[in-house]
């Protein structure tokens, strides 16, 4: 029995509206044209903890500034990239074309940043990384519209290489996941380490069990190991390292492995292990003291470097907007304002290089149990002072 023409028409209209309406979802009646920031973070899947820290740091700053950036009412639209490049691109296009954001910020992971940078920068929308710092964006692929409120990836690994060199370690085993960032980590470490790399062990991304690798390390008895195991992998490795009885015996040097996102899970197993970073909760600046206290009060946990970078990213935008009187429309003026880094970083010394990456200090940090029972990293020693990244020379921007 055929449906009546009217019913068909209604159904047709309903179905096509469903498709079109979700896509359109017109921005709700524009109020006094607020500044709009699209914040891209990884909020689902195993590494969600990092994304939550970064987002919370950013939102904390906006809240402290009374919901305003540069004195302007600000709307922050947070989207979850699901750690899938194609999803991230689609959502970022929505931010730019549907929500008409002035600035895109965020990105925990390099692959997400590399996927979204092309459409964002081609659209001449400002892109501010609060964590990821892949080398192409620092070198040949640098852009006047891109700024990093974090670091260039290699730098953190180099910190540990320099530390191993300074300590006089002769034989080191490197262990990282088998993907580009892992290979970059090894390259970054080796740039400043001149001793012998006994073995380079590549593990599976998301690996659960490290027993085979730990047995190898135990048998080889190196002076130290260096590892880069972000997120859950790091938790697995640290727990198993301690259980294998290696924690007290072979120094554990790392990057993005020991931080406040994983310490609540690893706890005592991680105490005493080392990491490279450009920040730690006990870094002695007035801005940092205030930030850490406010973050702990707001969220009840110790902030990580991801949170600190998120916070700095918001403060950077705030400072630049103040300089331009709240306007992003004059792109050259806003760019100049950003480039002058017009804010007090929680990290202390902070300025931008010609490629939009920071010039800043780097430290070796150590995991400790604080007197209040919480676990955090603490500054052990400064390794680099006012360091620039290694790719800036390849960047044509002046």
């Amino acid at each position, binding site marked *: *029995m*055929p*449906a009546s023409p009217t019913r*068909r028409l209604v*159904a*047709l209209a309903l*179905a*096509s509206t*469903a*498709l*079109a309406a*979700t*896509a*359109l*979802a017109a921005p709700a009646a524009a109020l006094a044209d607020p500044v709009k920031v699209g914040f891209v973070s990884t*909020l*689902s899947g195993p590494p969600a903890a990092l994304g939550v820290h970064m987002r919370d740091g950013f939102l904390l700053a906006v809240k402290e500034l009374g919901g305003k950036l540069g004195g302007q009412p600000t709307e922050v639209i*947070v*989207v*979850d990239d699901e*750690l*899938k*490049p*194609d999803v991230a*691109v*689609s959502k970022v*296009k*929505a931010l*730019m*074309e*549907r929500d008409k954001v002035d600035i895109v910020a965020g990105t925990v992971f*390099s*692959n997400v940043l*590399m*996927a979204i940078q*092309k*459409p964002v920068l081609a659209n001449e929308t400002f892109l501010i990384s609060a964590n990821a710092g*892949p080398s192409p964006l620092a070198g040949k692929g640098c852009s006047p519209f891109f700024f990093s409120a974090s670091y260039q990836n290699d730098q953190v690994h180099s910190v540990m290489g320099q530390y191993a060199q300074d300590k006089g370690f002769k034989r080191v085993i490197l262990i990282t996941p*088998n*993907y*580009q*960032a892992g*290979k970059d980590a090894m390259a970054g470490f080796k740039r400043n380490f001149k001793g012998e790399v006994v073995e380079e062990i590549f593990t599976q*991304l998301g690996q659960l069990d490290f027993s085979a690798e730990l047995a190898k390390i135990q048998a080889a008895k190196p002076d130290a190991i260096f590892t880069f195991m972000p997120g859950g992998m790091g938790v697995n490795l640290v727990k198993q390292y301690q259980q294998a009885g290696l924690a007290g015996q072979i120094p554990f040097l790392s990057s993005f492995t020991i931080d406040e996102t994983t310490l609540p899970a690893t706890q005592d197993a991680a105490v005493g292990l080392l990491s490279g970073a450009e920040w730690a909760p006990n870094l002695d600046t007035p801005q940092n003291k205030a930030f850490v206290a406010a973050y702990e009060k707001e969220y009840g946990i110790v902030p990580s470097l991801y949170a600190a970078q998120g916070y700095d990213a918001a403060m950077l935008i705030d400072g630049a907007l103040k300089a331009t009187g709240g306007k992003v429309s004059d792109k050259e003026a806003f760019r100049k304002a950003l480039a002058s880094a017009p804010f007090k970083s929680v990290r202390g010394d902070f300025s931008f290089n010609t490629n939009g990456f920071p010039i800043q200090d780097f430290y070796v940090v150590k995991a400790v149990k604080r007197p209040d029972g919480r676990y955090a990293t603490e500054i052990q020693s400064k390794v680099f002072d006012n360091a620039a990244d290694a790719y800036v020379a390849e960047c044509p921007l002046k």
Partner: protein
Amino acid sequence: MSARAAGGGAGFAFLFRPAVLIALFALALAVAVWSGSGYAPTIIARTAILALAAVSLSFLIGQAGLVSFGHAAPLGIGAYAVLIAGEYGVTNALVLFPLGFAAAALWSAATGVIALRTRGVYFIMITLAFAQMLFYVAGSLSAFGGDDGLGIAARATFFGQRFLRTDTDLAVFAIAALGVTLLVLERLSAAPFGLMLRTGRANEEKLASLGLDPFVHRLVALAAAGGIAGIAGVLLANQVEYVSPATMNWHVSGELIVMVVLGGTKRLGGAVLGAVAVMVIDETLGHFTEFWKFGLGLVILGAVLLRGADLTQLIRGTAHG
């Protein structure tokens, strides 16, 4: 058989017809362009591309009874064809589309020769195994970005002509591809070829007792579905302008199955509606809460438990109730 597979049915069943579906897409796109939205064409293009991949999987599941849990692999192959050809300076669509189709079809046929030895759950798992292997291989291609992936050089061209400049161009192209595919696969399903697949699905022993071993038919179906997924991959790479192994992750295979089953496997159009439903849920719930997958899970669970089983029946149910 073909009579019930292709047409008929009361109420809202006409929604499953290829012509109606394509008209809906075209209408949505026209509304989007008319309203001046920059983003709507993007999401319409994306929906059409995913629907294309889902339709090819629906052909495998619904007609041949081959539940592939590795359909992300040919999708990814299509995407990588664009990336790799682009690295060698090839961006001509007349090369890219046939290349993506052929490479993906070849993969599906080659793995199919082994996978078709198994049945049921074993088939599900062996297709997953092959896709996972490819996922790891893609992650190790340092020249093409390894696990991070790489941006493509440029969108496909037609002898130097940039015909996919905007996402609206891409949406038009994707909708056309979806329409052609629906048409071809419907003909294929109604033809003796599809009849043999369906009989083999319903009753393999009977088919054998009639003297037909459907192995070659199934292999051809696998290759064709793989090739179409490859085309979807080519389009996806052009839309995102970025290719990474994440496209081949088993989650993607799982999402494609969700689209197909949610829309119902009896009609190929069901997969299109399933893809639209998943995109709509994603786009709406995703804006309200970071826990939007909780809602998606509830919708899926509810759809199955409430005896709806698929949207086809759900729509019919409401239409009659």
